């Protein structure tokens, strides 16, 4: 990356030596122990997964342009929605923010040289790649058609090649566990001198809470996936009702992981939004402690909410009521965050830039996705909406909306730090608007479809659902167009963007105190953390008296 000019007009410098050119050669990338390079490997892999999963989503939307067959047969359709779910959840949403931004930012935000176990970190990338390869091989060779939830007994009897996909998920789980373990230990042991727990950036808190879920919940899905695989190959009868096994136990074991997994996906993006909110408003975080601890609250409560996926699986009224109540507590913790974010932005000096649009989109999705979640947690309403497009729209709003907003917001917010260059602000805002509007246009019709009774995962639908399905497909093209724009202008900015300088947004966090891109060892001199990471005003003063 030789630059003809390494100083911009306003004096921002592009360092001659940084983490991307400190060591040369392909081997220095594939065997790197540098958390920043590993983050870039994750960025490439998860972006590919996002594109693949997105293309399959587009194929599904095109299929639903007409009530009957449009472009694919029923079997292909089943495989398509399974592929879309598996790729988006296990290959994109779970590893995306922790893998890319957790890896890149955690040591920088803590003032550390690296994560606690760099070799384990590298291993987790390769384990991810291996698991992804195995899952995709299974998809290509036999095409799993059981949906990403793999409910027994259908997943035991389908002739499709499920076993490679299940073992792929098992292996992907290892990657997730290793990353989570690494981050927990890093947070415990590698904070800069002076950085107490209550001075940690909120992104670190969110990643910490996420890692706890990853470490505690993932082994269970790993075992469950292997059990279903063994079941298919050997017929042990563990979940097979024809041999005395209990299929409902599968649902319990599956959701014991897969409900907390929702928070593995959403919590990191909540951390991203915390950083974006305080950085965009340049104002001290309002309710720092509340946001930090509510992450732990969500992680804790999330472990006891899984039963709300099983209201129609023969649960007792007491179970269902308890799970409903606990599920609603998640809404309380989320609301704490939302009010504090809004409180932070209130009377801040808000910069009208791309991250702001992603913040607004995130708040909208999390509030409406969350409120529909509270509605779905109500047992009687859930029975009406169960397995309809209402549920599909709900979890896309809360989970996918949040992850896309957080992930893209983070890419824009930290792009200058990661690559030392600026993206084009105008294109950034236009594409963000496309994505937020496109996402709404895709999924608001699906809320209405579900409420009107269109079931999910059905190949054909009744004529009366046609107009809203077309609207949803139209919305998804806007969304895809927005993503395409981002790929183009960010790719362009990698080489040709204006030089960013160390701290283009004028922020207080430790990651902005090193060069952009950072050197291999992160900091020229190991930093200390005397002040908390969001010191923009002195306590008790008004917004006008800005310290930095």
């Amino acid at each position, binding site marked *: 990356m030789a630059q003809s000019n390494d100083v911009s007009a306003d004096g921002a410098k592009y360092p001659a030596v940084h983490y991307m050119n400190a060591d040369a050669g392909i081997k220095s990338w594939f065997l790197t*122990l540098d958390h920043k390079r590993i983050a870039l490997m994750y960025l490439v892999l998860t972006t590919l997964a996002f594109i693949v999963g997105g293309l399959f989503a587009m194929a599904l939307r095109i299929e639903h342009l007409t009530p009957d067959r449009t472009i694919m047969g029923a079997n292909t359709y089943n495989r398509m929605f399974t592929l879309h779910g598996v790729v988006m959840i296990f290959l994109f949403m779970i590893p995306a923010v922790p893998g890319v931004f957790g890896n890149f930012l955690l040591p920088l935000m803590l003032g*550390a*040289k*690296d994560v*606690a*176990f*760099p*070799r*384990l970190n590298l291993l987790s990338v390769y384990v991810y790649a291996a698991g992804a390869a195995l899952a995709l091989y299974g998809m290509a060779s036999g095409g799993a058609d059981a949906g990403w939830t793999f409910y027994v007994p259908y997943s035991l009897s389908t002739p499709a090649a499920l076993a490679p996909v299940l073992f792929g998920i098992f292996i992907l789980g290892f990657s997730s*566990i290793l990353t989570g*373990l*690494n981050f*927990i*230990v890093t947070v*415990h*042991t*590698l904070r800069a001198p002076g950085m107490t727990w209550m001075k940690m950036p909120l992104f670190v808190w969110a990643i910490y809470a996420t890692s706890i879920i990853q*470490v*505690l*919940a*993932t*082994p*269970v899905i*790993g*075992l*469950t996936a292997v*059990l279903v695989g*063994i*079941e298919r190959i*050997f*017929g*042990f*009868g*563990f979940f*097979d009702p024809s*041999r*005395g*096994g*209990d299929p409902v*136990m599968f649902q*319990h*074991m599956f959701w014991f992981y897969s409900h907390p997994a929702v928070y593995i996906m959403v919590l990191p993006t909540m951390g991203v939004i915390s950083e974006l909110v305080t950085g965009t408003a340049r104002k001290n975080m309002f309710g720092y402690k509340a946001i930090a601890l509510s992450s732990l609250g969500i992680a804790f409560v999330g472990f006891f909410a899984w039963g709300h996926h099983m209201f129609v699986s023969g649960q007792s009224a007491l179970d269902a009521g308890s799970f409903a109540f606990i599920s609603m507590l998640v809404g309380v913790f989320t609301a704490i965050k939302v009010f504090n974010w809004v409180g932070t932005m209130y009377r801040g000096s808000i910069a009208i830039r791309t991250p702001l649009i992603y913040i607004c989109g995130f708040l909208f999705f999390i509030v409406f996705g969350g409120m529909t979640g509270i509605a779905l947690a109500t047992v009687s309403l859930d029975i009406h909406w169960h397995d309809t497009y209402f549920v599909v729209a709900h979890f896309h709003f809360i989970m996918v909306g949040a992850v896309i907003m957080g992930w893209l917001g983070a890419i824009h917010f930290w792009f200058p730090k990661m690559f030392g260059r600026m993206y084009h602000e105008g294109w950034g805002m236009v594409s963000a608007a496309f994505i937020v509007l496109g996402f709404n246009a895709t999924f608001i019709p699906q809320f209405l479809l579900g409420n009107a009774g269109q079931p999910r995962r059905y190949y054909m639908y009744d004529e009366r659902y046609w107009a809203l399905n077309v609207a949803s497909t139209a919305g998804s093209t806007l969304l895809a167009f927005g993503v395409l724009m981002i790929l183009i202008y960010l790719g362009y900015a990698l080489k040709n963007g204006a030089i960013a300088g160390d701290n283009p947004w004028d922020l207080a966090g430790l990651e902005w105190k090193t060069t952009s891109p950072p050197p291999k*060892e992160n900091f*020229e*001199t*190991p930093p200390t953390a005397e002040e908390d990471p969001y010191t923009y005003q002195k306590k008790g003063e008004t917004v006008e008296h800005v310290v930095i």
Partner: protein
Amino acid sequence: MSSSKAEPAGGHGHGHALPWYQAHHFDSMEVQNHAVRLGMWLFLGTEVLLFAGLFLGYTVYRWLYHQSFHEASRLLSLPLGTINTIILITSSFTVALGYHAIKVGKQKACVGYLAFTIACAGAFLVIKFFEYKHKFEVGELPGRFFTAYHDFSPLGAKGANLYYAIYFLATGLHAFHVIVGASILAWLMVRVHKGKYGPHHYVPVELGALYWHLVDLVWIFLFPLLYLI
């Protein structure tokens, strides 16, 4: 874990070279030891949760098929199970002695204790093999392989296949952990023999011993659940 990072200390602010076993991103050995211990404990937590699914299955099916579980557990070899339990508890004791030995600098004693522990692991697996072999011969096997209906009362035959599914899944997963644990101890033993560890640097042995204790502990739960009650 990261204790033997090959890279020399290239960090800033270090006036002196670090010992080979200290990674450059840790400020001191105390911090590094804290980190690797915490990492190991977290990993052991994930192992417990990996087995938790099988314990859940045991609980559910024991409740659903109480009679079968009772009758099937009578058909396991209590003497062999007891011997294996004694072997594993003894091995847990010797691995702890090995850890103590390296901590006070007695490398030869440590090698001996680790070798004895590995031998216990081998003995455990041999006995387990003969238990499995017998089960295969009489058809007391999981799911569709289960053929030993004649050993059970009419009530007990229903769900006995699930008892053996859990028996083979749980003890098989445990046996896999015995193999992994013994391999780790063998690797540590070689390195102790080479003089890599001593009173200044014994945490890898500690972690290996911790893992071995987990292997032992899982069996301490499996033995009463499968053999005794």
